[in-house]
């Protein structure tokens, strides 16, 4: 029943795409298309929630489409339902946001048709129940999102971003294709049910793990496969950026979880080491990259890389516990990772919406040209602040809860018998702690430079508050950040059926705990109550304000800034994004990014101003991608001569190839 509903919603979204081509030129096209998208996604979201919260049994359906004798299979179980809810929650809010935001679009016909198709593709990926449908939907998702990335094709960087994205996406899909090829085996078992029943040998299973890490990891943004992400996500229109960062990366996580936890079967113990190491490195590298940025949207995109790292740390711990049969600990780690999937989709969408609102109001993405927006855009500033606090993993909002659960899972890992894990897990825990602290630093910078201080340009000074639809979407997500932060038990319980499916155990029921606390293992071990912490903070803050205003003084005068007696009227003397990050760049960046500060001091008598140039290099790009690109360029140049041969030379080439093939056939045993 629910499966039918969600498939109809996906079909409606697919049908909207050609419709949007027709109506895209009309004046009111954007609100209509986005409104219909929001409606379809909302129905799908409600159905997915009903499936998930109602703990309904899995439903499956085969449609006579696609490859003959294989058909197209769809299935909704708790895992699909959860990710469907994440996808559609993002879709509803992005569509709502876009009703306002999309009206500023210069070329709506380049965005409107692809947007519903993109939503439909993401819905179909999580519903697919055979390898063929999964891969087709996956590739469709890549292509539609690519079209959205290059929708502003006149901007030079965007075309480059689209190019890198399509290359990496094709590479990732190739890896997934091979992974499913291995899983399908020589018998061609395409449906997931058949794959699940067939247990691959240990070697094949390990190969599938690596291929899934490459395929899903490149889409999710695991270091070192993340290079396309900070280019492509910011290039798209902001509501699409939110979907790509907040939702599409989660679809990639779904792909990884589905393959590694569900389809392959029992993991080997060392799998978790690979996943944990990658997750830890991704978390810290992502946030350090983010700290070096001064483009607001690119900073947010790099933070997606960081959060994917945190999610993979949770998943890696779950794999480790699962491999050793510690099911309840595995359930905790898995729940932590999946809760972070949900949390990140909420606050990352919120933050990208905020950056979109800033972009609409000022036309700027570069933080160094912004500042002081809190005065003209107080509501956007408020919701953006909520998102910043949430993503920095600070209590009482939701980001803290999932990181807290991950820490609790880390603290269970001394019980693991493997020495490799005993040595690795503390290091990963330290990396997780480091990334959380750096994330807070990064969002002090993002919010402080963009919204606080004095406006650095005229555009920032003249900014105006964004429209009602955008605000509604952002307020909704901000409220969700708070609710998931103060009542995390509800969300943890909703994830219980997933843990049941994937690791065969579930966390203790949280909603029955006194005072709505969460108790992941036992009351004597650890507990956290977001609601009480929130109330305590609220009450004591209000009490303090009330007492001081009543008993002491509530008078207030405005005056010029003090600044130790030397205030400078020029807003250029404020701290900028790069100067704010300078201490951290000096501590972490000198080795990791070869960060150098060059002072260009003109000789006496020269009228040029002195300049400080900061050089930051991306060593991963230099070490991995640049050589590959150079090799491809070099061989392409060399092979170019093949285009200019005479007909006789071509014929002799063909003849030589024929002879070689015959020789191979003759020698082949």
């Amino acid at each position, binding site marked *: 029943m629910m499966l039918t509903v969600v498939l109809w919603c996906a079909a409606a979204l697919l049908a909207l795409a050609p419709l949007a081509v027709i109506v895209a030129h009309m004046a009111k096209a954007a609100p209509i298309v986005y409104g219909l998208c929001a409606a379809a996604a909302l129905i799908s979201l409600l159905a997915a929630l009903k499936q998930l919260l109602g703990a309904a049994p899995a439903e499956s359906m085969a449609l006579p489409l696609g490859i003959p004798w294989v058909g197209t299979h769809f299935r909704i179980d708790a895992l699909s339902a959860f990710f469907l809810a994440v996808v559609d929650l993002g879709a509803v809010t992005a569509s709502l946001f876009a009703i306002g935001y999309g009206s500023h679009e210069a070329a709506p016909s380049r965005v409107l048709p692809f947007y519903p198709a993109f939503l439909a593709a993401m819905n179909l990926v999580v519903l697919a129940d055979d390898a063929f449908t999964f891969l087709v939907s996956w590739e469709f998702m890549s292509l539609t999102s690519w079209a959205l990335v290059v929708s502003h094709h006149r901007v030079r960087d965007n075309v480059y971003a689209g190019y890198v994205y399509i290359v990496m996406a094709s590479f990732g899909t190739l890896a997934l294709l091979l992974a499913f090829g291995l899983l399908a085996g020589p018998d061609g078992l395409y449906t997931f049910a058949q794959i699940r029943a067939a247990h691959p040998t240990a070697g094949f299973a390990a190969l599938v793990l690596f291929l899934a890490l490459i395929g899903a990891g490149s889409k999710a943004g695991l270091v070192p496969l993340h290079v396309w992400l900070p280019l492509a996500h910011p290039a798209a229109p902001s509501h699409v950026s939110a979907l790509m960062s907040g939702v599409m990366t989660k679809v990639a996580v779904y792909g990884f979880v589905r393959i590694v936890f569900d389809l392959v079967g029992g993991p080997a113990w060392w799998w978790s080491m690979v996943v944990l190491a990658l997750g830890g490195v991704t978390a810290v590298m992502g946030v350090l990259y983010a700290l070096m940025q001064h483009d607001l949207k690119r900073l947010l995109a790099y933070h997606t890389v960081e959060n994917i790292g945190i999610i993979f740390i949770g998943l890696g711990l779950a794999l480790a516990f699962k491999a050793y049969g510690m099911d309840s600990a595995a359930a905790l780690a898995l729940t932590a990772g999946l809760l972070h999937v949900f949390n990140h989709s909420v606050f990352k969408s919120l933050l990208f919406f905020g950056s979109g609102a800033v972009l609409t109001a000022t036309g700027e993405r570069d933080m160094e040209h912004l500042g002081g927006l809190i005065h003209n855009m107080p509501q956007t500033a408020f919701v953006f602040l909520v998102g910043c606090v949430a993503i920095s993993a600070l209590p009482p909002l939701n980001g803290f809860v999932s990181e807290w659960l991950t820490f609790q899972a880390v603290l269970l890992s001394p019980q693991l018998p493997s020495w490799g894990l005993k040595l690795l897990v503390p290091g990963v825990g*330290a990396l997780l702690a480091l990334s959380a*602290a750096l994330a807070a630093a990064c969002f002090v910078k993002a919010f402080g430079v963009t919204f606080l*201080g004095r406006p650095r340009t005229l555009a920032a000074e003249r900014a105006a508050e964004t429209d009602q639809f955008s605000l509604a979407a952002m307020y909704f997500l901000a409220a969700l950040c708070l609710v998931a932060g103060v009542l995390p038990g509800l969300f943890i319980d909703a994830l219980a059926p997933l843990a049941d499916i994937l690791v065969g155990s579930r966390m203790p029921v949280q909603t029955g705990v006194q005072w709505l606390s969460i108790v992941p293992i036992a009351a004597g071990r650890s*507990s956290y109550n977001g609601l009480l912490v929130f109330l305590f*903070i609220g009450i004591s*803050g209000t009490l303090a304000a009330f007492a001081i205003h009543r008993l002491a003084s509530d008078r207030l005068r405005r005056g010029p800034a003090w600044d130790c007696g030397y205030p400078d009227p020029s807003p250029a003397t404020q701290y900028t994004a790069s100067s704010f990050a300078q*201490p951290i760049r000096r*501590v972490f960046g000198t080795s990791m990014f070869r960060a150098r500060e060059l002072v260009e001091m003109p000789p006496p008598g020269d009228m040029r101003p002195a300049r400080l140039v900061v050089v930051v290099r991306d060593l991963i790009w230099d070490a991995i991608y640049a050589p590959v690109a150079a090799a491809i360029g070099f061989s392409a140049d060399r092979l170019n001569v093949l285009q200019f041969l005479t007909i006789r030379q071509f014929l002799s080439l063909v003849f030589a190839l024929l002879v070689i093939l015959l020789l191979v056939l003759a020698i082949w045993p």
Partner: protein
Amino acid sequence: MILDFAVQGLQMLLVLALAPLLTGFVRKAKARLMRRQGPPLIQPYRDLIRLMHKDVVLASNASWLFRVIPYLIFAVTWVAASLVPTFRIGLLFSWSADLIAIIALLGSARFFQALAGLDVGTSFGGIGASREVMIASLAEPAMLMIVFTLALIAGSTQLSNIAEFMVSPAVGLRVSLALGLLALILVAIAENGRIPVDNPATHLELTMVHEAMVLEYSGRHLALIELTASLKLILYVSLIACLFAPWGLKPEGAGIADFTIGIPAYLGKLAVGGFLLALFETSIAKMRVFRVPEFLGVALMLGLLAVLLRFVSGSL
């Protein structure tokens, strides 16, 4: 139940009331060690009252956030401080936030304080905020490593349970605990902006961090921020005391008679902690800002080493 509630309330008021006294005591002790007379012990209270009665002079472009932040960080720090056991274990609400959450609450306070530094758009505010987050980015992971060590030894992240374990004879002498204590002291010095990381007495010095961040505050806002700094100091001293010197901490269910032991013991520990801090501060010079990462890197490595020891062996 009512008694528990009263104890929790007493604890909240106790830390709030004692916080300026501890600050005054450290100042006095420092002055005496330098052979100065020093301000009287109650000088911080006088300062607070005077500041609270003054008008607030707000920079003309300060936003609403700038005005909310003092109350917010005070509330957050107060909540965190009132969850640390001072004279009695098993406070009524101690389960509402474990040690990780307490550290994260302090992180929230710092997040907003750094934002306040950027709000007016002055270069001093910016320099303070950017250095504060640099210090925090190393101090927080180091602190979490210490929490991990303690949690792995005591089998709990609940501060009450850890403290209870530390009172019990099961704890013994452990290498990881020694490393943890050393790291915790380094982190506490950095977090509270004490010498050699930052100088709380300084004003207009190019290396200042905390004072630069709060430069634009005045009147009752400044009073709250000063009070918050005192609360943070007493929080860390109480934390070290309840973890590494848990003598005199009364277990849950102790009667009123036991307070006659618990509270004087706590006061004694505060005095010793404050004196040691003053002694340390007078015997060391402030370091350059970019030496601080090395200082905190030591704390982080010590913490990591302690956690590794716990992972590798159950008895170390």
